[in-house]
């Protein structure tokens, strides 16, 4: 039963990614060209509500549906891994025009070549895993 909740949240998320056009290569291109407010509006309004939601959860020490206190882990401290990793991610985002969430949505929407992007995203993840100890973090 619990598993079904996650499936439904995913379906809802996929519909949002598709219908808000956040999964469109064109929207990502236009965002980096600063020709449209659309993507900035999506990320900005998600953040506006996101900050409020997390502050409320933390201050009121809200419990999850299963009775545990909701844990929101802090991210590991560093600068280099975020700037370097982020920049590499951004180069890929600007080229393939899809980040990991929309990649899944685009399979369902029938854009078969996205499978090439996903396959190489898996290779990229694997190569990172191979070199994780050698990279500056």
């Amino acid at each position, binding site marked *: 039963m619990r598993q079904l909740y996650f499936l439904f949240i995913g379906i809802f998320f996929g*519909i949002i990614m598709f219908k808000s056009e956040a999964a469109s290569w064109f929207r990502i291109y236009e965002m980096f060209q600063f020709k449209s407010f659309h993507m900035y509006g999506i990320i900005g309004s998600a953040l506006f509500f996101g900050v409020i939601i997390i502050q409320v959860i933390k201050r009121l020490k809200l419990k999850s549906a299963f009775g545990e206190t909701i844990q929101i882990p802090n991210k590991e401290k560093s600068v280099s891994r975020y700037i370097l990793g*982020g920049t590499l991610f951004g180069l890929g985002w600007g080229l393939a025009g899809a980040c990991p969430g929309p990649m899944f949505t685009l399979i369902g929407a029938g854009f078969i070549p996205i499978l*090439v992007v996903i396959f190489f995203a898996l290779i990229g993840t694997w190569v990172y895993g191979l070199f994780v100890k050698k990279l500056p973090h």
Partner: protein
Amino acid sequence: MEWIFKPWPWYIGGPLIAFVMFLLLFLGKNFGMSSNLRTLCTICGAGKSTRFFDFDWKTQQWNLLVAFGAIIGGWIGVNWLSDSIAVQLHPDTINQLHQFNIKSAGEAYMPEELFSLQALSNPKVLITLSLGGFLVGFGARYAGGCTSGHAISGLSNLQLVSLYAVIGFFIGGLAMNHFLLPYFF
């Protein structure tokens, strides 16, 4: 209800993404899609090659279900919830893309020159898609998250390091978009 079948404006999409993040927190989980790429590597046996993938993937089953749901959601979006899927772009964007020979700009959801089956026979397209995918996968794990993990979850939780990651996303994205992308077309 007519609006459902039109493209959703940002002030619908953005708050709904925050709501997805809330639903996952309410179920005791954290919103982050790129973790699924690591889990899929583990399922494919990557744990044998390096310890980074040596973990019990069943603990991430919930997230794979979210990803599987996102596939179904994409199908529902295109088949049941859309009358036209062409993305309305700024005229300047359309002109610019036409110069790069992306003629489908303004008339399609994804550029046919990159995301149609015929396009796959073009080696340049294959390089674009595979290099893009590789960088997204490698970069997301290196940065410890992607757009959902950092730009939404991390920034919502006021994590300074997520701001560094998002600054990185834009350094890379802008460099690709303005200086490198023309060489791929």
